[in-house]
């Protein structure tokens, strides 16, 4: 049996830092991890939008999007919502603890193709995690892109991920950040309402623009409708799909949406492609 290059054998990584983004039943905790093996640490390459299988021996693995951009350094960030067995176990970990990581998996956002364009990210809840690497990537390569518009909302202000760093985004001529929550709260300075409505309020021009949306399926549906109202072409719109996965390498079968494997052909899809796939928004 080939030991080297066995695609199921994970690497070990240490948690350098960990903090809660949100609290409650479905708390979100971010882990900043570094590979123990120097060689892996140096050779690891990922692109915005890719995912990794993270886990613990004896518990299992979950496919989680890498929420850091490769431009940030030789570490990975994962923002994990407490949902099932594996994420529950991960939430119990602290800095100094270790996890297993294998990947990176899937395709990525075509950030090279987007050079010279305006970038608009439209996120909801934990859906901001796969969008964060785009934002960091664009910020790190600021000269390559036109305006960066961040639109992000969640149910309450307590459910916003990366709240601190997003509030720190100083609106300049070419960078803006628009936050929203579903219902009114005391001291909330930003928009109140759903993300699709916030999008209409921001009213971005489709001219030379790319819109990327991630979030709950219901939000994505209305965001897509509204983007069409704003005259975005299908080809200008990107989203990510998520499905249950086990192997991450196109073998175990379960993540398919129509004839596409989300782990291989996705998770990033152009809307023009996705429209042809009947199961994609199921």
């Amino acid at each position, binding site marked *: 049996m080939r030991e080297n290059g066995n*695609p*199921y054998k994970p690497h070990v990584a240490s948690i350098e830092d960990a903090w809660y983004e949100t609290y409650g039943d479905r708390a979100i905790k971010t882990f900043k991890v570094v590979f123990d093996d120097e060689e892996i640490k140096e050779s690891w390459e990922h692109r915005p939008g890719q995912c990794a299988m993270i886990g613990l*021996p004896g518990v299992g693995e*979950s496919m989680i999007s890498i929420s850091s951009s490769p431009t940030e350094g030789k570490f990975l960030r994962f923002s994990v919502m407490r949902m099932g067995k594996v994420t529950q176990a991960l939430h119990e970990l602290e800095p100094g603890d270790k996890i297993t990581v294998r990947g990176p998996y899937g395709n990525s956002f075509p950030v090279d193709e987007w050079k010279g364009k305006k970038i608009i990210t439209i996120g909801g809840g934990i859906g901001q995690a796969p969008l964060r690497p785009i934002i960091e990537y664009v910020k790190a390569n600021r000269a390559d892109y036109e305006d960066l518009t961040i639109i992000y909302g969640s149910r309450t202000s307590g459910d916003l991920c990366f709240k601190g760093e997003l509030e720190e985004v100083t609106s300049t001529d070419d960078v803006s950040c628009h936050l929203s929550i579903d219902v009114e709260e005391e001291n909330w300075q930003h928009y109140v309402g759903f993300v699709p409505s916030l999008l209409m309020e921001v009213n971005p021009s489709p001219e030379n623009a790319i819109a990327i949306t991630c979030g709950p399926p219901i939000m994505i549906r209305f965001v897509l409708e509204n983007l069409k109202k704003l005259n975005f072409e299908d080809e200008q719109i990107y989203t990510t799909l998520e*499905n249950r996965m086990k192997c991450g390498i196109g073998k*175990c079968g379960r993540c398919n949406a129509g004839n596409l494997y989300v782990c291989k052909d996705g998770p990033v899809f152009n809307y023009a492609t996705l429209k042809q796939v009947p199961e994609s928004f199921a």
Partner: protein
Amino acid sequence: MESLKLSKEKLGDFVSKLTDKELLVPQKEGEALKFAPLAGEDMPELDYENTSVPPKNAVFPHTETMLQFELGKMDMQVAAGDEKEKVLLGVRPCDARAMVIIDNLFTWDVDDPYYVDKREKSTVVGLACHEPCSNCFCTSVGGGPASTEGLDVLLTDLGDSYLVQPLSEKGEVLCQAGADVLEKASDADIQGAEKAHEEAANKISRHIDTAGIPENLPSLWEHELWEEVSRSCLGCGICTFLCPPCHCFDMQDEVEGFEGRRCRTWDSCMFSEYTMHASGHNPRHSRRERTRNRINHKYSYYVDKFDVIACVGCGRCINLCPVNIDILDILSKVREAL
């Protein structure tokens, strides 16, 4: 390669020449007939229609340890592969074809090292069908009762003997090992086998014309036929579990004492948990969606990806379904709807 002949009386002698390999032959286990190691002096019993459990188990086991670890340690070790090479004796041509079909899946993009290792260490000796089962439809999906795809050797029953046709290097090696008990086949033997093959193909009574199905099946996405054909489904999953080209698996960790293992087990797209998200959301929330996926995957998606239908027409899903759901009935409805 030259065709040979093995007298049935000498089958035991032939088998005894293969002691350096693990010999798997169809054997009864309760009500099931499955490939299992031949014990001691036992003679292989090759008089059967087909095994209820397909031989995919030998290359893609129902449960397989992938990684091992010590409880509390982070390092996971790759489980050792099989030491011995295997010979599968008496594989029906449809089941051998299924292995070729799933080779595509297990080797595309990244090799699955467990599958590839077992596959490389297996020699597949086929047995041409004389009496196809009542639900066989291999000839409709690219196979046949004497199809040689995926076989290293093909045996054809000639009454008192078998015609032995080596088909690959592995097959040649096997025949050389048994050279003492094999004789040269005559032209009459070869003609006899060809006649038997033709007769068997003519005995296949069920057919479906698959032309146009792969390209057009997804267009029937919202068609009422999916509701109709899945209404009686119990969701037991037997149609996929014992389907030779079905290859979906689950991965789970198990810990016993201080020993842990990460293993994979067969899974089925007909189970509700198969696609259930951690949030509870299920993109295929009812048997209608799951049945639709099963048929689309076999007859359309797999063809898109690997240019071959992921069904070999063995008829197991029809024979074993507790509520008599019949894939040929479904495909006939698809035909009508197209």
